[in-house]
Structure formats: structure tokens, C-alpha cells
């Protein structure tokens, strides 16, 4: 009551709840209210203004308990804000930036930032030129992502989309990038699993988890990705690179549809409101590669999108494809064929990632793609039961070995230089896809081995040069990979 009185005195305006439809409130009064402004109800709940009508305003409530018809409501005079800052690293927070779970901590010193801001213009942006390592061989090699890129991760449910995102977060956090993971309308159990996974990887000091569970109100779920992006922007302004994962945006779109339909807005295609494109694009537009005090600071964004039965021509899916810089497509057919990650590289796209690759990596990528193309074509012949030539058999063997090389357990993240060396060993046919982890662990722990691998890769100007060098000096590497213990 006192909070309400304080704001009544401050703004000199009062409103009255006229109707309550689930979490959408229509209130009369508050003539000076603006869209996005935070409001307070007599019963203590908070909400924010989502639309202005002739005599009424539409408010989205941000709590489980709803105000009743006739209750008073006051403007706060400020937009919805969330706390941001270093103090949030290591915390799991809800869509309003309030810590949840066991690790309650005072957020004193946190900077309050508006959730909705106008994205930075072209002048503050710079061409994407630095690669972002995901730790997934297939992605780093074939569908490379750059810092500041928005790469959509798309696929049917349970095909490993989240695994790619989790591995990327772990790889990047270990490299010092600040990571913000937004779990949008997830089950409590899934959120817990993600929390534990990151805790086990020991990277929580570089991570903020912004979560809303499916039991939270649509208002909180709707705000979750915006809150995550707001927190990322704080670190960008501090000159740091940030990785934001939005898991997942199809749930976000569904909740926005629910809110819009309750608000009696006219339904469009698939009953989504007409402004659903704007809702998502104004969020993703906030990611990119920015210039901050003469230095580059990027917000790389990986939104996740669910498809139904491999159909990526849906309304929201195509919207997201058109506002991102490419997509990684997880194919359920490949998943059921046992491929992990089940990424279909022939459907996946990266629009700006290739420009961040070194000439060597680009050449390797082209050679690999060429082989996989040949492999696919030869496999089609095999289906007719045709007798294959020696050359075709060689292509099939090499293709299968390459695909096996791309199979990667969720727990393993492979540094880029190790990927390059392993690829070379495989290409030369001197390594049979065994004990990959040994080289990864060795690279992380043994400084000498790391220097050897780094020198091998950095000293090679072309794939042919790399293959020659590896052929000459592969003994210690193969010794490590093929040793019995």
C-alpha cells in the first residue's frame, strides 16, 4: 500500500483495474502511461504496460497472484529495469534479475538497466572478423561462427540442439568470454540439469543463467530473453565479449501469441500476432560486433528454435532465419542414424562465419565438403546395388571415417588447433579415430604438447603444407593417440 502511495504522490496519476483476463489486465486512468513502463498495483504486484488504448491501458502482470477488478494501480514513471553487473556472474536469476535457488546474494552495486533499448546503429558496429570457437569439430570446421554473429540453432525436439549450445558456452567460458544462458519457459527439471551441468564444468564464475520455468507467468517468460540481452549489453559496454544463448525462441513465440490473443489482438498466420517478427528482430538486432572505446566487443547470439518433423518452413522458423546470420540445422533422420551431433551440413548456413576463418581452415573446410559431397553422391549409387569402382570404395571409406571423426561426445570440447591436427592425421590415413580425448587432455595440460600443436598449425600456410608437416612429425602425436594405457 505504501509503495503504491509513494508512486501516486510521485506521478500524480491513478488507474483502476477494469478487467483481468489471465495475466493481461485492462486498467482505466493513468493518462500519462507509456508502453514498457512499470506499474504497481494496490496489492503489491508489478506489471508493465504493453499497449495503450483510447480510455484504457493493457498491462502484463509479472507475478503469479493477480490483482482484482477495482484495485488501484499507479505508474512508476520508469521503464522496466533489471540489475546488471559483475555481481550477477555465477547466479541463476529470474526474468526480473532476482536471484533464485540456493545461492542468494546481495546485488548491491548492480547497475539497473532498461530491458527494452533501441539497438546500436551501424556507426557503432564493425565487420565480424574474429572466430568464435564452439568446441564442436563439425561446426568449427564446416559451419564456422564469428564473434558477433547471430546463428540460429534449429531442429526437431531431442536432436541435440541444447547440447551444442551447452558445449559452446563451456568452450567460450573457458576462453574467458562472459556467457548468458536464457532458459525460456523450460521445465524445472531441465533448468536444474543445465545448472548442474555448468557447475560440473566449473565455469559458473563466467556465466549468468536467466531462467523462467513453464510454471512462471507468461509475462516473465516473455521478458526472459530481453533480460538476458540486457545483461549481455552491460558486459559489452565494459569492453568484454559476450555469448548469449536463447533456449528456446519457439516457446517464446508461443507465449507471446498467448499474451496477444488474451489482449484481443488480431491473430495473423498460425494465430501469431502481426508484430511477432518485430518482437524477435528487435531482440536479435541487439547482438553484433560493436566498437567500444576503439576496441571490439561482441555479443554473439545463439537463438534456438524447435521444428516439427524437419519442417523449417514454418512461420516463426522462417522469420528467425531471415533475422539471423545463418542456421545450424539438426536433422532428426541423422540423429536416428546415430550421428552426434546430428547436424545436416548441406542445409546449414553460415553467412559471416567463413570470413573469420584462416586460409588454412577455409581450405580444410572446402576439402572436407568436397569429400562429403562425393560421399553422398556415391552412396546414392550404392542404393541401386551398383558395383563400385576402387575409387568409389575409397571415397566411401574416407567419408565414413570423416563422419566418425565428427561424432563427438557431449562432454568433449575440442580446441580449434587440435581439430586441425586431428583432421590432418585422419586425412593422411595414419590415425583411426581412436582416443581423441587423449590429445585434447594433453593439449590442455601439457604446455609442451600445446606449443608443438600450435606451432604446427600456425606455421602452415596451406592444407598441403600442414599435411606435409604432420606427415613428417606425426610420431609423438600418434604415440599419444595410439598408446595402450
Amino acid at each position, binding site marked *: 500500500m505504501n509503495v503504491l502511495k509513494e508512486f501516486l*504522490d510521485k506521478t500524480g496519476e491513478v488507474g483502476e483495474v477494469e478487467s483481468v483476463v489471465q495475466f493481461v489486465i485492462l486498467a482505466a486512468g493513468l493518462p500519462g502511461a507509456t508502453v514498457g513502463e512499470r506499474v504497481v498495483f494496490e496489492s503489491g504486484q508489478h506489471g508493465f504496460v504493453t499497449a495503450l488504448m483510447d480510455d484504457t491501458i493493457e498491462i502484463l502482470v509479472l507475478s503469479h497472484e493477480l490483482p482484482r477488478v477495482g484495485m*488501484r494501480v499507479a505508474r512508476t514513471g520508469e521503464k522496466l529495469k533489471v540489475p546488471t553487473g559483475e555481481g550477477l556472474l555465477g547466479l541463476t536469476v529470474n526474468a526480473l534479475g532476482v536471484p533464485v535457488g540456493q545461492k542468494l546474494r546481495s546485488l548491491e552495486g548492480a547497475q539497473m538497466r532498461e530491458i527494452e533499448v533501441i539497438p546500436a546503429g551501424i556507426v557503432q558496429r564493425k565487420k565480424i572478423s574474429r572466430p568464435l570457437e564452439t568446441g564442436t569439430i563439425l561446426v568449427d570446421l564446416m559451419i564456422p561462427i564469428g564473434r558477433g554473429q547471430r546463428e540460429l540453432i534449429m531442429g526437431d525436439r531431442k536432436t541435440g540442439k541444447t547440447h551444442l549450445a551447452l558445449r559452446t558456452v563451456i568452450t567460450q567460458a573457458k576462453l574467458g568470454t562472459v556467457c548468458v544462458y536464457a532458459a525460456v519457459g523450460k521445465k524445472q527439471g531441465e533448468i536444474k540439469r543445465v545448472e548442474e551441468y555448468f557447475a560440473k564444468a566449473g565455469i559458473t564464475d563466467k556465466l549468468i543463467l536467466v531462467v523462467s520455468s513453464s510454471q512462471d507467468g507468461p509475462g516473465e517468460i516473455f521478458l526472459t530473453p530481453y533480460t538476458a540481452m540486457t545483461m549481455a549489453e552491460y558486459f559489452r559496454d565494459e569492453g568484454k565479449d559476450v555469448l548469449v544463448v536463447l533456449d528456446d525462441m519457439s516457446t517464446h513465440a508461443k507465449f507471446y501469441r498467448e499474451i496477444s490473443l488474451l489482449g484481443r489482438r488480431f491473430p495473423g498466420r498460425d494465430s501469431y500476432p502481426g508484430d511477432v517478427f518485430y518482437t524477435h528482430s528487435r531482440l536479435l538486432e541487439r547482438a553484433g560486433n560493436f566498437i567500444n572505446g576503439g576496441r571490439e566487443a561482441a555479443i554473439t547470439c545463439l537463438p534456438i528454435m524447435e521444428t516439427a518433423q524437419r519442417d523449417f518452413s514454418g512461420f516463426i522458423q522462417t522469420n528467425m532465419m531471415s533475422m539471423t546470420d545463418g542456421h545450424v540445422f539438426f536433422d532428426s533422420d541423422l540423429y536416428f542414424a546415430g550421428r552426434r551431433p546430428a547436424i545436416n551440413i548441406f542445409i546449414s548456413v553460415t553467412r559471416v562465419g567463413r570470413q573469420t576463418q584462416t586460409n588454412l581452415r577455409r581450405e580444410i573446410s572446402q576439402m572436407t565438403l568436397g569429400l562429403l559431397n562425393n560421399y553422398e553422391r556415391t552412396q546414392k549409387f550404392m542404393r541401386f546395388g551398383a558395383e563400385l569402382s576402387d575409387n568409389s570404395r575409397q571415397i566411401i571409406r574416407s567419408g565414413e571415417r570423416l563422419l566418425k571423426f565428427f561424432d563427438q561426445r557431449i562432454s568433449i570440447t575440442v580446441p580449434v588447433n587440435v581439430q586441425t591436427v586431428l583432421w590432418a592425421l585422419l586425412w593422411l590415413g595414419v590415425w583411426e579415430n581412436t582416443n581423441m580425448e587423449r590429445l585434447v587432455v594433453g593439449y590442455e595440460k601439457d604446455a609442451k604438447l600445446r606449443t608443438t600443436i600450435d606451432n604446427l598449425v600456425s606455421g602452415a600456410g596451406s592444407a598441403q603444407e600442414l599435411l606435409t608437416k604432420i606427415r613428417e612429425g606425426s610420431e609423438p602425436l600418434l604415440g599419444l593417440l595410439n598408446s595402450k594405457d
Partner: protein
Amino acid sequence: MFSEMLDLVITKEDVDAQIEVIDIVGDSLHRTRNKELRKWLMGLPVCDLTIAFEPTKEVLRDLGRWVRKNLNKEAVLRVAVDPGVIAGAEIAFKGRYKDLTVRAKIDDLFPFERAS
């Protein structure tokens, strides 16, 4: 259109009572006129007043007169009683809010005590 009715409806309770009567007789007499009257009554702007005492009819009439003179000539009152305001009134009309109570004045005089 029905301005002669204004003397009969000073408060929101008066409006509700009139609407109740219209609902009872509405279908039997002057159907169209009653419908219009009901609509007019429903559309009268409401001024919320919070005062410290239970007002008598005379006080209500005085308050109503003041509101119609200063805010809107068709406004009706919705009065709430809160002895905590001490004297004066909290006024809310068409989304605007004014605290013209003695409580607010005292709070301004002793801000530290209020904060504690």
C-alpha cells in the same frame, strides 16, 4: 440530455440505485428512453474521494457541488472513509491523483519520522 437528473445522483451509490430502478421498470415503460438514461448514467465520470469521516447527506451534497464546479459538471462521487487522512481529502479523477490531506502535510513536515 438528462441533466435534470443530476440533482438525484450525487454519488455512485445513487447512480447504481437509479440503474436498479431502470432495470426493474425498463421493459414495461418508455423502453427506448430508459435505455438511453441507463447508458447516460453508466457513462457519468466518477470522482474518488477519500475523507476522514462518514459524510452526512448535506456534506455529500456540498462535496458534490464542489466537484461539479471544479472538476466536471456531471461527475458523481465515490466516497471512501479513512480516518488516517485526519482531514482534507484524497481526490482521484480521470486518472489524475491529488493528496490534499492533513496526513500528507504532516508527512511533509516530518519526513524523517515517515521514513523510519
